[in-house]
């Protein structure tokens, strides 16, 4: 479970988040939609404990991040449109580096397991600067999963992916959902990755403009609701 309580964040004179509260139960796959500058990525960074809110509190499980930040970070995996990968290092060296930061047990076996999952076993010892955009994003998925996180944050994960990459990421998301991982995805897209979504949050001007489950949602409803809420 992830809980954000009264989260606010200001950059200069701009209120990016205005007293947002939300709760995402364990195993739920939530998508966050909103226009550019709505505060989606800021919300994700705060919930993922890499940015501090000006006010408010984040809880993962029942634990608050104030005293247990390091421990809570072990439970979190982040997949962004940036890969967080070092181009001079090989795929193996990148995974080993992140695995060590998370103190992953049986790291060698875990590296092989995640690299197989993303279909890059043959490129394991290739330097990352030789990778295509699709391969980079697949390795980035492996990096995000190296420590078997309970909660996964996705920030525009489909950006720049080819069809094969999109298909692989969708498979990975299905797999994560079936293993009861809690997932929060920030996206612009109304289509990609939306098949397995349980709930949608629409954020506009730093506030939650809509929050609804996807069951019973008819084709075209999402776009209609989105434009109604964003326009208002």
């Amino acid at each position, binding site marked *: 479970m992830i809980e954000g309580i009264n989260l606010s964040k200001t950059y200069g004179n701009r209120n990016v988040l205005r007293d947002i509260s939300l709760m995402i139960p364990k195993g739920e796959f939530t998508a966050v939609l909103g226009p550019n500058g709505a505060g989606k990525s800021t919300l994700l960074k705060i919930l993922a404990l890499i940015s501090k809110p000006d006010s408010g509190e984040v809880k993962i499980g029942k634990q608050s991040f104030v005293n247990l930040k390091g421990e809570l970070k072990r439970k979190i995996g982040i997949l962004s449109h*940036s890969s967080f*990968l070092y181009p001079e290092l090989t795929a193996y060296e990148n995974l080993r580096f992140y695995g060590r930061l998370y103190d992953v047990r049986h790291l060698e076996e875990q590296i092989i397991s995640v690299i197989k999952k993303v279909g890059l076993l043959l490129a394991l010892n290739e330097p990352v600067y030789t990778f295509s955009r699709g391969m980079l994003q697949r390795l980035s998925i492996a990096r995000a999963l190296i420590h078997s996180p309970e909660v996964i944050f996705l920030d525009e994960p489909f950006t720049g992916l080819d069809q094969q990459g999109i298909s692989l990421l969708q498979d990975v998301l299905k797999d994560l959902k079936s293993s009861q991982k809690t997932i929060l995805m920030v996206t612009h897209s109304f289509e990609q990755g939306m098949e397995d979504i349980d709930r949608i949050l629409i954020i506009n001007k730093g506030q939650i403009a809509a929050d609804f489950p996807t069951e019973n949602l008819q084709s075209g409803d999402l776009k209609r609701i989105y434009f109604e809420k964003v326009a208002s």
Partner: protein
Amino acid sequence: MGRALALITTIIKKDLVSELRAKESVVTMVTFSVLILVLFSMAFEPSRETVREILPGLIWMSLIFSGILGLNRTYARERFNDCLIGILSSPIAPYHIYIGKAASSLVQLFIVEIITFPLYFVFYDLEIDGSLGILLLTMLLGSVGFILVGTFLAALTSSLRSKEALLPVILFPLLVPVLLASIEATSAIFAGLTLNQYLPWLKLILVYDLVFLVVPLLLFDYLMEVD
């Protein structure tokens, strides 16, 4: 403690392997250092007594200038692909990053020193009347002070647009005590003075090193905050 050491070592190894592959910093630093010493050897007559007097300053200034080239690269690598966010999203304390970065920068500076220092004997006919061991200790302590403050300020400027220009501007005023003490101690060792005559300079460097080890540890959390 063991876990902290493991994390710091992980950062150091990653930085050094990246540098070994990219050869961006050390090659540039060595080339710059060698160029300075060659150009100065052509500009001055090496046998002159005045050269002996300015040599400690020249050695330290060339090290500092070449070191700044390396420091500017320290966080550039982390900004590429948003790797710093990747690190900060893991259960690592910011001070692990600071110590790891400082240690890997120090290793790179030592490589520059090992390569360039013998060249001063060749180009300037350098003779040391004092203890070589204490000279090496002075080089070590002075380099540690420079790298500690430089690593801290490089983190401060790393997200700014004009970071390459800004780092030397804010770094040099803070380097004055350690630079002055290192030059004075090096001069004294070259001249063969007794340890008691330059011990205060060594103590000053040591105090500087301690201050710039502790202060960044206290402030690095704020520097590493992600907006």
